[in-house]
């Protein structure tokens, strides 16, 4: 027999009035994996995370978290979750240390336990020497790391991260990714949302792609790319919009699939260099030609006809 999933949604639905934010999605998160919800703004990722976090009642379908029903056992579930919300909600009237201490008390932990863990966790997120500082002047990356440390104070089995690195500069992002990877190695199950395909590729063992309240694809990053996209992509940029428009009919047949974006044309192909040569032979004069591997961004574009960023 295999272990029951840590989180499972069946036809899970969230409505706000008549608006449907999450529309009958099915997914399963297994213990120990890093599971992602990838999708553009408004796809319903936060709404889904809030239902899993037992701070938003389910409107339809079924949800089980840690084998329990959020409607009946919300506090028991929340006592075993760690939550890093999309918007920081650190207590800016308190110091770094007091943020940890108070949060631990919300879980009913004894002060002696909190003291030990808080120092360990602050060291883990590299804020050990900032414990007496006020929270307000900390950088965005430090606040994010503190939020992560705070979410770990109850030693959760499941850590929910809603857009953990949105708004951070690249260096701060990499530090967060590295810490999350360490947590995964320690056996913490991660569920995260993101609209960055590189974040999903870096962190997720498995993910679902969400668009307009629905799940449109599911699998590991590699599986998704293999299944829905080609191995390589040729990106062609042109000097003017006219040139780009005129080039489009000539490109048909140059690859398995051609997509026109506002600023470039993408040709999906098994052999990027071959396609690039073909394009040159056809007498097209793009301002730049780039051959690259397919990413999750391409999977999203192929499945929905839109890019993740808009």
């Amino acid at each position, binding site marked *: 027999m295999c272990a029951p999933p840590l989180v499972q949604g069946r036809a899970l639905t969230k409505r706000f009035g008549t608006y449907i934010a999450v529309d009958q999605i099915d997914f399963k998160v297994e213990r120990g994996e890093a599971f992602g919800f990838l999708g553009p703004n408004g796809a319903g990722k936060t709404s889904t995370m809030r239902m899993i976090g037992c701070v938003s009642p389910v409107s339809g379908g079924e949800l089980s978290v840690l084998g329990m029903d959020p409607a009946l056992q*919300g506090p028991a579930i929340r006592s075993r979750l760690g939550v890093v*919300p999309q918007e920081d909600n650190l207590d800016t009237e308190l110091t770094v240390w007091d943020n940890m201490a108070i949060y631990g*008390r*919300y879980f*009913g932990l004894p002060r002696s336990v909190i003291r030990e863990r808080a120092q360990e966790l602050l060291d883990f997120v590299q804020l050990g020497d900032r414990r007496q500082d006020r929270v307000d002047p900390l950088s965005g990356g430090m606040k994010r790391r503190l939020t992560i440390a705070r979410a770990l104070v109850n030693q959760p089995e499941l850590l929910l991260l809603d857009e953990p690195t949105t708004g951070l500069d690249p260096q701060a992002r990499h530090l967060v990714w590295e810490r999350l990877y360490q947590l995964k190695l320690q056996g913490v199950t991660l569920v995260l949302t993101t609209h960055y395909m590189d974040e999903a590729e870096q962190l997720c063992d498995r993910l679902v792609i969400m668009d307009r309240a629905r799940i449109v694809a599911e699998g590991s990053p590699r599986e998704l790319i293999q299944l829905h996209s080609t191995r390589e992509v040729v990106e062609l940029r042109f000097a003017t919009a006219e040139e780009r428009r005129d080039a489009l009919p000539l490109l048909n047949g140059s690859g398995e699939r051609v997509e026109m974006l506002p600023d470039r044309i993408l040709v999906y192909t098994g052999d990027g260099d071959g396609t690039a040569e073909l394009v040159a032979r056809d007498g097209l004069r793009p301002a730049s030609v780039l051959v690259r591997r397919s990413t999750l961004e391409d999977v999203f574009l192929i499945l929905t006809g839109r890019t993740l960023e808009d």
Partner: protein
Amino acid sequence: MAVAPPMLRVLEREAIVFRKLWRGSAFSSFVTPVMFLAAIGLGLGGLVERRTGHVAGVGYLAFVAPGLLAASAMQTAAGSSLWPVMAGTKWIRTYHAVVATPLSAADLYGGTVLWVGVRATAAASAFLAVAVLLGGVPSPWGILAVPAATLGALAFAAPLAAYAATQDTDLTFPVIMRLGIVPLFLFSGTFFPISQLPSWLRPVSVASPLWHAIELCRQATTGTPRWAAATGHTAVLIACVAAGWRWGTRTFARRLTP
């Protein structure tokens, strides 16, 4: 070992924040009553007594002290139920962090209101101490004015905290203070018996929770308990707290766990 109710953990956070500000707050808790009682009780009271003798059977200072005591508890309660709730739901969003833990929106609401009660108790005790020193509290029953003023404070804190959670901005809060709290302060029997008011205004005063709180405080500090009336006043105030509490557990849940 008894497990403390979860809502007390909310008080702990408030106490930690308060620990850093208590000096300023303690200072004003004593200075404000000294100023009010000196200016109004002694200054204005001297004039009043020269013209009319005693008010409602006691000196003016003894008359006005319980009124000011209950009224200042109301003002503290109103101020610390409106803006701090907006900070928790919208400005700093700390409440959203709380409901992600085992605490519920109802626990958070309860803890928030109880903390206002704790603050009101402390402020009322300081006020009473000053009033005793200035000679404004003729009866040892006066000690009961502290729980009475606290109950009065809760009668405002419970509905106002509930209301604050329904708002997206603090635009209406100054209006509530100016058109709600200030008129109640003036017309609930704080400075003169409501029998002085035109008869059409009197029912408004009687409907004001502050009037009930002041009556309770005044019976205590002047040592003139009228048990039937006191029971009625207490019941009205408890009803205000209970109604506010019911409403608040809902508004907090709707705001924080939609």
